[in-house]
């Protein structure tokens, strides 16, 4: 049988019309003139969105420590304990007391990213009159509108449509050889739809499989299309086929020439107890594929990865242990996959180019239900990852004694977050922001990106991890070492001679996050110059002392 193709390249005279059976036909338009082309993406930055499908329970993701009693009372069968081995992980001793937060115990990797200034947390994100329907709320997040808007396009679609004019006819081309956006999976969500024509994204699960699939099916396309409703639908399908055909080979090439870092292992399984269907980490392979495509040189601007299972009406936790189960496994998957992704990007030299955000259609009710779950709510936190983020926590803890009809009151509109991604990260200009319909949000956007503001991250890290000058210094006999660490763990202070030999270990022990003061007796030391070095999970600093 002859080799078939999904769709052969189209090359017809543009615009001519003829009549057949009294139906006006127009030929399929040929490639638009290249003069239309003005690929205005001025940078090589990439935005990765992780959709937490189903509505993530923010209150069990980050726990408001200052209101632990209220928290426990609202959800005794779900509450993450404040004691024991699996208690919440205090995030940041540098936050004000009223905003002290704890990570779910399975978010250790995210704690590590936070401590290295690669994570910012945005509290209580939603929109006015939050809609409790999964699909409607998802549409709202994707379309970038208000609760009562019904736009046929998505905000990412409008943005990419603006910066890559002439899609789809003029693409791929030499400046933009890749899909403008890639959604991992089978579907293309509203986010990437444009006002007219096919969406700007294509959906793939794996570039090699996609290539094989596309090349194993299809035939010759029709050469002319009726100017009718039927003809328009036909053109829609043909445009999608054509783009798929054009991109399949290129994506395979890019994927095959790219590689993940050999030093990074992506997580596969949740190491604790959860229902069998939740044990496997399905986010990690998606992020791994994105990293590999990027290392192969893909120029795609926006990716959407997805993790499902957050609709935890029942059995969110194991009945015998609220720190394990469905939700815990999902959080572990995000946390461990994101750590591997960041490490991979760093190792591949791509860390400066990628910012990742999580979002979910809504959060969940503050109180739990009798099925060890909780129902649809409103506000929830968003997480923004990357070397270039402005690290820390945006917003305050929700006031659990002042709920809005059982829900967490929302503080930030989701567009305040997305507008920062658009303007500060993707560096959209005013015209692009207007085309995205986000102009009204520019003044209210959060400052989620730290690049361009030098020292922001250093300041964040310094405030949370520092070794003070020992006092007194010069030292006659006694001195005191003071330090602050943001991550609990093994901490060591060594005193070294100028050759770097350890002459005394002052401490080598586990320390909780926060401030520590350690007195030391140096009376036996010879006169001269010494170094003292503090090493811990989130710090490695050396300073000088003089012994009199």
């Amino acid at each position, binding site marked *: 049988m002859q080799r078939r193709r999904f769709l052969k390249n189209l090359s017809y005279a543009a615009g001519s019309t003829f009549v057949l059976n009294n139906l006006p036909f127009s030929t399929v338009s040929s490639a638009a003139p290249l003069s239309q082309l003005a690929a205005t993406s001025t940078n090589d930055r990439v935005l990765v969105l992780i959709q937490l499908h189903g509505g993530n329970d923010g209150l069990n993701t980050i726990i408001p420590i200052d209101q632990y009693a209220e928290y426990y009372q609202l959800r005794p069968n779900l509450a993450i304990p404040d004691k024991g081995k699996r208690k919440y992980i205090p995030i940041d001793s540098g936050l004000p007391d009223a905003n002290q937060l704890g990570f779910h115990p399975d978010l250790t990797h995210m704690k590590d990213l936070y401590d290295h200034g690669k994570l910012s947390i945005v509290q209580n994100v939603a929109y006015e009159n939050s809609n409790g329907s*999964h699909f409607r709320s998802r*549409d709202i997040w994707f379309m970038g509108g208000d609760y009562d808007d019904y736009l046929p396009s998505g905000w990412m679609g409008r943005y990419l449509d603006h910066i890559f004019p002439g899609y789809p006819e003029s693409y791929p081309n030499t400046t933009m050889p890749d899909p403008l956006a890639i959604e991992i999976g089978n579907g293309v969500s509203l986010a990437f739809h444009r006002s007219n024509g096919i969406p700007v994204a294509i959906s793939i699960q794996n570039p090699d499989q996609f290539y094989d699939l596309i090349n194993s099916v299809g035939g010759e*396309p029709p050469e002319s299309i009726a100017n009718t409703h039927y003809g328009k639908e036909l053109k829609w399908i043909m445009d*999608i086929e054509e783009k798929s055909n054009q991109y399949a080979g290129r994506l395979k090439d890019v994927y095959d020439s790219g590689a993940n870092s050999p030093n990074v292992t992506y997580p596969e399984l949740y190491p604790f107890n959860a229902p069998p269907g939740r044990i496997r980490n399905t986010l990690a392979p998606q992020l791994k594929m994105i990293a590999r495509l990027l290392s192969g040189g893909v120029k795609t601007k926006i990716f959407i990865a997805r993790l499902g299972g957050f*609709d935890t009406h029942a059995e969110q936790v194991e009945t015998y242990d609220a720190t394990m189960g469905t939700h815990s496994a999902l959080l572990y998957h995000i946390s461990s996959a994101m750590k591997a992704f960041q490490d991979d990007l760093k190792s591949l030299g791509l860390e400066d180019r990628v910012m990742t955000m999580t979002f979910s259609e809504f959060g969940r009710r503050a109180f739990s239900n009798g099925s060890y779950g909780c129902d649809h709510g409103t506000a929830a936190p968003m997480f923004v990852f990357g070397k270039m983020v402005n690290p820390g926590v945006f917003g305050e803890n929700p006031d659990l004694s002042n709920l809005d009809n059982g829900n967490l009151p929302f503080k930030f509109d989701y567009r305040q977050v997305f507008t920062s991604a658009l303007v500060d990260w993707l560096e959209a200009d005013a015209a692009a922001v207007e085309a995205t319909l986000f102009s009204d949000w520019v003044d209210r956007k959060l400052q989620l990106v730290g690049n361009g503001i030098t020292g922001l991250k250093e300041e964040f890290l310094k405030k949370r991890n520092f070794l003070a000058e020992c006092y007194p210094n010069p030292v006659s006999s006694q001195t005191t070492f003071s330090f602050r660490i943001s991550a609990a763990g093994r901490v060591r202070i060594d005193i070294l001679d100028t050759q770097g030999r350890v002459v005394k270990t002052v401490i080598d022990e586990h320390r909780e996050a926060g401030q520590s003061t350690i007195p030391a007796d140096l009376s036996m030391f010879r006169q001269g110059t010494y170094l003292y070095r503090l090493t811990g999970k989130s710090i490695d600093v050396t300073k000088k002392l003089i012994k009199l």
Partner: protein
Amino acid sequence: MISEKFRNQGLDFYEPFDVSGYDAYYQEPAYNRNWITANNLARRYQISSDLLLGYKDENDNLLYRLDILWYCQSEGIDLNSPQAIVTYFVDNLFPEAITAERFDYFKSTLLIDVAEADWVEAVINVEDFQVVFHLENLINAMIQSPEYQLF
């Protein structure tokens, strides 16, 4: 196995992705188009081909296959006429009329490398498997066409 194939096309029967049902059918006015993605389309093409040409399990046992010759005979299609064969399937597989050029294209997928004038002698009067081969090539081309997806 069949349900797996449907799942790949975005139709996970009885197990939609979540309580909102299948993703395709909400955001108007594009609700009828949102399901159409490269993956879903390609999988649809693939299953059409699988259903027609047969599908084997891991032990190489044929699970199903359309008996195209039996079908044509039972429908009373004049197999001696390539024109009649293509006309029958165009009328029955496509929602709207197609152009003469398009008709000729599908006829060429039936004839493959046989001249229309030689059809009876070179195909029909030979072995049944020859006829089946040509018929399957036509049907395969038709059900893997964009027109068929709108049926």
